[in-house]
């Protein structure tokens, strides 16, 4: 989950907030739009997996100048990824 950092303007959120108000929803404010990225990862264990996701977020998935990130990892029983 990647969110705009507090204090960084979020034009998408402002526009959605206005649209919600126009639809008659009163009392909604602070609408902020971020993004969710789903990943399937092969890793030795959950700790390894968390390290990898954190690094990927810091290097590429989020821009620390404007965004904060948080993530959640869990084991899935899907078969391992197969090349091709």
């Amino acid at each position: 989950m990647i969110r705009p950092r507090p204090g960084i303007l979020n034009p998408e959120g402002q526009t959605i907030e206005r649209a919600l108000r126009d639809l008659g929803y009163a009392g909604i404010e602070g609408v902020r739009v971020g993004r969710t990225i789903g990943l399937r990862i092969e890793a030795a264990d959950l700790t390894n997996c968390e390290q990898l996701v954190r690094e990927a977020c810091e290097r590429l998935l989020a821009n620390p100048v404007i965004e904060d990130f948080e993530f959640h990892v869990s084991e899935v029983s899907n078969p391992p990824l197969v090349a091709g």
Partner: protein
Amino acid sequence: MRFGIVRFPGSNCDFDCERAVRSGLGEVPVILWHKEESLLGADIVLLPGGFSYGDHLRAGAIARFSPIMKAVRAFAAAGGPVLGICNGFQILCEAHLLPGALIRNRGLRFRCHSVYLRVESTVTPFTGEYGERQILCLPIAHGEGQYVADADTIDELERDSRVIFRYVDRAGETTTDSNPNGSLRGIAGVCSAKRNVVGLMPHPERAISQLLGSADGLGVFQSAVAALASLEGVAS
């Protein structure tokens, strides 16, 4: 003297940059495919506008990791002149070669029209031939050009005269209406601490002849030539 123009998948102002260098200066640039690991002898590096990697994730976020960027980073660290235009500016920010970030325009619209800019500092390799506070008319074409940074960074940029271009009205005044994207303090372009890396959202390469509506952008390229000539003069 050799201009190097980096071409990423999705760059689309590379040809305009090439034309600006060729017909504006009479120089033959080298095109640097992003997979290159060297700058092939370029003395000045241009990162053109466009939509590198489709602007996926964030504009410039993926191009930043292209192989050529390692060479660009080393070149910049050694004091080499690097100019990022539009998407090139976004890439330089993502690569942390310039501070801050460019987010979605205030109002969410893609803005494609001419703007007035004020040259805030002539102490860069790309603005030396302009006059202090000269007003330029250049086109913009971007959806993500709102310059943001934390308050300390903005203060530092202002204090060190690292805001290089600012959106103004025809009379040269900063107003809300003259700011096309909501950039903090109307910032349209900034430079690095060593002043050799410059980024701006407007397109000087699209304003090199009156036939295009303005020749005000030519000074950016002429400045680079003059800056390099004086560097070489010092070296020899």
